[in-house]
């Protein structure tokens, strides 16, 4: 149970992007907000700045099960922020249609675990609309938001990380923020991006992560990875809530004299290959970590690409520390998860290869 306690204690004040930050917004101060409040702010700004944007999904009217949509219905009216019946396939299809008419449809799927009925709509309709109509039509205004990831007690259907399924679909973008400040900027970029985007929010961090978030409208560019910690011995790549765990492992590794470079991918599809490549060419070692099961997870794609680009510079095989190849378990969650110790072990094994 210690693993669970450790997880519940983590605070994310230190995950602000410090070192050599390329974004001026990262050094700005703002109000201290948690993740759901930052997302809420982003949605308020999005609806404010574009009168043709709509937020809908199950239970969003009263604020949503995670409070991300609080205050929207009161401020913008029930015609723009409304509840849908319980039908994910219908909701996303409806969103695609709305976006095809030039609107910004911000769809909420209540948990990423429930996104599968809509999978057909996303893969076959949304992703291919522009392509198959020869650019006559597009549903670029579509943004699908879904809470994903483990939460300590979610079990099979409230903890899944389905990002890998969507990274396999040319035509959509997949974005995952790591913290409140990132989430607000990334979400605004996703909403305004002229392509359909799937935005996974780490539900673990909704309340746990607290950060200073600037109050104005700002966007963080997509497809740009960020080096959030510099180092020389090994590159670690991750996204979302997993980065906190990785950062803890980096701190522990530093005590043993291993200097780790940590990269937040932010956008998984299309992902920033150049940043990761430059880093691995410097360190010669790569470790990828994600909560989703290891086989076929997105780490495999990163590994294969880096291998192609950096083969001669690699000092050790690329390591992946991920969830196990089982359904997301109930009581076994602490064993399933890629914990700090598993990552630390892998760092040491790789460095000592």
């Amino acid at each position, binding site marked *: 149970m210690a693993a669970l306690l450790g997880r519940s204690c983590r605070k994310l004040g230190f995950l602000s992007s410090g070192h050599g930050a390329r974004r001026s917004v990262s050094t700005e101060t703002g109000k201290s907000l948690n993740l759901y409040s930052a997302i809420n702010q982003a949605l308020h700004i999005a609806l404010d700045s574009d009168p043709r944007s709509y937020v809908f999904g199950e239970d969003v009217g009263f604020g949503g099960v995670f409070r991300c949509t609080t205050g929207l219905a009161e401020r913008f009216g029930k015609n723009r922020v409304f509840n849908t019946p319980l*039908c994910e396939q219908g909701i996303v299809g409806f969103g695609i249609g709305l976006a095809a008419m030039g609107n910004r449809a911000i769809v909420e799927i209540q948990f990423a675990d429930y996104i599968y009925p809509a999978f057909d709509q996303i893969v076959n309709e949304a992703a291919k609309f522009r392509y198959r109509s020869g650019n006559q039509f597009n549903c670029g205004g579509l943004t699908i938001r879904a809470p994903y990831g483990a939460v300590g007690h979610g079990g*099979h259907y409230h903890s899944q990380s389905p990002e890998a399924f969507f990274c396999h679909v040319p035509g959509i973008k997949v974005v995952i923020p790591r913290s409140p400040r990132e989430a607000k900027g990334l979400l605004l970029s996703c909403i305004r991006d002229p392509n359909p985007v799937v935005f996974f929010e780490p539900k673990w961090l909704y309340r746990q992560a607290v950060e200073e978030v600037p109050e104005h409208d700002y966007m963080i560019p997509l497809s740009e990875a960020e080096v959030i910690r510099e180092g020389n011995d090994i590159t670690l790549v991750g996204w979302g809530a997993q980065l906190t765990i990785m950062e803890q492992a980096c701190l522990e590794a530093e005590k043993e004299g291993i200097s780790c470079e940590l990269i937040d991918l932010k956008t998984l599809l299309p992902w920033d290959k150049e940043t990761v490549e430059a880093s691995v060419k410097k360190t010669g070692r790569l470790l990828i970590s994600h909560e989703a099961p290891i086989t076929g997870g997105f780490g495999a794609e990163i590994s294969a690409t880096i291998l192609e680009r950096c083969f001669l510079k690699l000092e050790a095989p690329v390591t992946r520390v991920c969830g196990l190849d089982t359904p997301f378990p109930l009581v*076994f969650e602490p064993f399933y998860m890629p914990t700090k110790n598993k990552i630390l072990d892998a760092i040491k094994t790789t460095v000592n290869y």
Partner: protein
Amino acid sequence: MALSRLSSRSNGIARPFSAAFNRFISTDTTPITIETSLPFTAHLCDPPSRSVESSSQELLDFFRTMALMRRMEIAADSLYKAKLIRGFCHLYDGQEAVAIGMEAAITKKDAIITAYRDHCIFLGRGGSLHEVFSELMGRQAGCSKGKGGSMHFYKKDSSFYGGHGIVGAQVPLGCGIAFAQKYNKEEAVTFALYGDGAANQGQLFEALNISALWDLPAILVCENNHYGMGTAEWRAAKSPSYYKRGDYVPGLKVDGMDAFAVKQACKFAKDHALEKGPIILEMDTYRYHGHSMSDPGSTYRTRDEISGVRQERDPIERIKKLVLSHDLATEKELKDMEKEIRKEVDDAIAKAKDCPMPEPSELFTNVYVKGFGTESFGPDRKEVKAALP
């Protein structure tokens, strides 16, 4: 009433009684006829009669089992708040009449499949309290070996197919089970339960169409507790007459708080399904708790509404009144029965608390058929055992 010696329970929930109860519990199967509180509303079929055949034993059985279910759910509430049950817990109190009425009308060969509000249905199918509490607390002795949790109770030998987390996904499964029953000429039916929220899922209509096309013995039961989590039915459905949603499939609207109405409807539905194909039953019921333990249940409905239903339509109170009016037991005897039940539940909880958690190796079992899957150990996957056929 004739007072005779106690005989063992016939509904599969074996339970010893103390000698003090021998006096009044009647093993009489002399028929009692009960009138349902409300008439049935039918769609494309003739509604069954309001007079339900029952017996004194059945009446007392109903009371006892429903009180047990109620007590079990309340105990689960406390266990959840004590963090012994983790994850999600969806409680059934208020809806017991549906579980008990259905069981009374069918056999263990008929299949039941439901969504995540499954504790009482599992109990009705013959599950034991020990299995329930062990599974809720994630212990080895649980019905799904501690790997399923609250939402995934199963009992193969009683044809209880669970226990499903994804809303609406269990209905096409239920129709598939019905197909198998028809194919194997089993003379059995399948009850696929779902809620008013799930009634708007597309896969339900797909399953309905297939069942009607091939005349499957599938009975779709909408447990309409009027709220899909926090959304009232009138805000989610253009037509909240769920029993009519089948269009070309007949339907029946039933007072789900009246165990005898449920029993009559299920009997009627079983006969219909075996002869003519699918039918929809809408059970007008109510849940006192919120959607799950994370939901207080009072942000989208008034406390007056909840207490109003509790006062006027509570299923256990209704049976209690019938028991008392037919002189089958005195108030005191019923209270003693409830005390016994409380003790039984407490004992089961204590026993379940002592049960061990599953072995860590269980994390990897049953992902695939044994011997045909992969197992991974270690962060660098140095030990990977793959045995493919």
